[in-house]
């Protein structure tokens, strides 16, 4: 009797998650013999889920088989290398990878080189191995654009706090440079402090609560990603100071867009995760099908980075959905 109860309990726990979960998106309808794989850093951050969609859109466009894999949340570059090896064994025709660590991933790329599988790198650089191209965004330019928006909104005068990302992450370093480039040239802007909330919402909420005690006068909180921005928004809301402080994020995630719509977050900037994978996956497919040699560096997102604020959020969302729908990918916002 106890044993059956126990079994029922196990089934209940596992089943509850499985029942409510939506199924995995199936691979596209027709398929050549070609199979392209995308490896991202994890699939627990919406940013990388959008990257998955980008790769899928490109694969759909050419009717090619597509796999997207990633290590678990706290996985490391070793896990990515293992995934690469498994994919090589499986016989993929090309791999696009977003490295967790620029040096660590080299071993995996070299293994792909030995097996003759072409490699493309996206978002974070790889410092070795042979790969056909690197597709990335200019984090610094993105941050500079956001910084200029903040300066304009504050009319050139104000006290700013920066919430940095994970210590040592290249994206955080590059974004910091961008903000510094603009803010340091503005005499009216005072950066009170730069502190990290590790790209994490809960940590950002806690840090912001303490910052609100330290500083009576804050005009803007500038966060290097949306999760942290939303954490800061919650802390400001709880302290009743949201109307006096503008908060900006980076990435234009779903929940950030929702916050914009509700008038809480002030602005965010599109870091174009979809394009960051669409472009290299398409390049990989075109290399396989038509032998097109891609340029060594592909900077994704031509022109000015798009600032999304409370005024243009609806239009922005519609555009993203339309773009993806064109390739048979249902993106829900």
């Amino acid at each position, binding site marked *: 009797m106890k044993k059956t109860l126990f079994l029922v*309990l196990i089934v209940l726990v596992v089943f509850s*998650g499985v029942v409510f979960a939506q199924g995995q998106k199936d691979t596209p309808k027709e398929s050549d013999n070609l199979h392209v794989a995308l490896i991202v850093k994890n699939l627990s951050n919406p940013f990388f889920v959008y990257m998955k969609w980008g790769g899928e859109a490109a694969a759909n466009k050419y009717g090619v088989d597509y796999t997207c894999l990633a290590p678990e*949340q706290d996985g490391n570059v070793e896990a990515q290398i293992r995934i690469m090896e498994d994919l090589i064994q499986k016989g993929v025709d090309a791999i696009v990878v977003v490295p967790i660590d620029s040096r660590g991933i080299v071993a995996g790329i070299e293994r792909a080189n030995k097996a003759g599988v072409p490699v493309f790198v996206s978002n974070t650089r790889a410092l070795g191995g042979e790969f056909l191209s690197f597709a990335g965004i200019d984090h610094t330019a993105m941050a500079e654009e956001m910084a200029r928006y903040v300066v304009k909104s504050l009319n050139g005068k104000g006290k700013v706090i920066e919430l940095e990302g994970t210590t040592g992450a290249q994206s955080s370093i590059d974004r910091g440079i961008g903000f510094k480039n603009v803010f340091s040239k503005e005499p009216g802007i005072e950066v009170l402090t730069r502190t990290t909330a590790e790209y994490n*919402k809960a940590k950002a*909420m*806690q840090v912001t*609560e*303490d910052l609100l005690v330290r500083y009576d006068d804050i005009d803007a909180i500038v966060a290097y990603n949306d999760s942290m921005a939303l954490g800061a928004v919650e802390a400001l809301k709880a302290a009743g100071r949201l109307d006096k402080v503008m908060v900006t994020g980076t990435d234009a995630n779903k929940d950030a867009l929702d916050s914009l719509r509700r008038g809480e977050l002030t602005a965010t900037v599109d870091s174009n995760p979809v394009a960051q994978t669409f472009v290299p996956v398409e390049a990989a497919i075109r290399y396989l099908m038509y032998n097109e040699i891609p340029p060594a560096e592909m900077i994704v997102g031509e022109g000015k980075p798009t600032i999304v604020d409370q005024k243009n959020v609806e239009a922005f969302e519609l555009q993203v959905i339309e773009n993806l729908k064109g390739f048979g990918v249902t993106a829900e916002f």
Partner: protein
Amino acid sequence: MKFKNKLAQIASSLRDTNTSRALFTLLIFFVASTIFVNRFFTLNNLINVLRQSALVFSFSIGMAIAMLLAGLDLSIGAVAAYSGVLAASLISNGYIVLGIIVGLLVGITCGLISGVIISKYKVPPFIMTFGMMKIASGLALNFTKGESIYGLSDKFRWIGVGTIGLIPAPLIICTVLLILLAYFGKRSVLGRRIYAVGSNRNAARFSGIPCERTLMIGYALSGLFSGIAGLMFVARLGSAEGIMGDGWPLQAIAACVLGGVSFAGGEGTIQGAAIGALCVAIMYNVLNLLGVSPSWQQFLIGFVIIFVISIDFIKSQIIRKKNISNKLRTMQKTA
């Protein structure tokens, strides 16, 4: 008359040496922070610290129960995350009460599974709860597919961000929990059994205490409190993410250790864990106020834990040696 009894009860719980030691540690932290850290002793900041300590306490309860049973529960964060995301998906669709019930049930169930495997199949708690952590975390991440679940009703969010006057809701909820647990801790049959099983399993078994059942209920309770903590955090953040609870086990262990709860089992109190949670919250708060970088924060907190444990250990060694030399002296006198 009743008031005098209550005071006597509080005094007797403090007479527990572990808890009074914890209180002493807290006093030092508090006084040092007030003197050396600018803006620590302001109304806003103290409310912040109390709120943050209530949150730390909420997920330390489960760890404290596991440690009292001479075990460990590494799954507290992941179970909270899984409870939180399942509850949030229901709450965001309008089913507040059902969501809360589901959240608590999931917590209890995960804890019960851990408890059964630990007690019946003799798997070490460290390994079992580590496995449960991975399972619950995986289920949570798979359920949310990496995105966060938001759109939670304001009524539900009260338990995370609401206040009565100036007092934050999490603090009220956790104070109520604390009073209940402290009162029933050593006075209830279950409470006494937990202490007995934790301090000496064999002796407990020979006294007729159902050890396996006590372990199962203990870990199930840990799961329940993880579920409660999960609900509070989701209410506070306004959204549920699959990665919630990352780093909780470490903070919980810190809170329990600073609060006088021993890994060996059977020593310490839930009140001690609450005091430890205050210490942890003060530490993080002070480091933030001083602008210390997170990498140094990690280092310092680990350092403080080891320091406190070592002092405890040295003190108990000194007391032991004194007792032994006293006994020798009395033996010599009578010889």
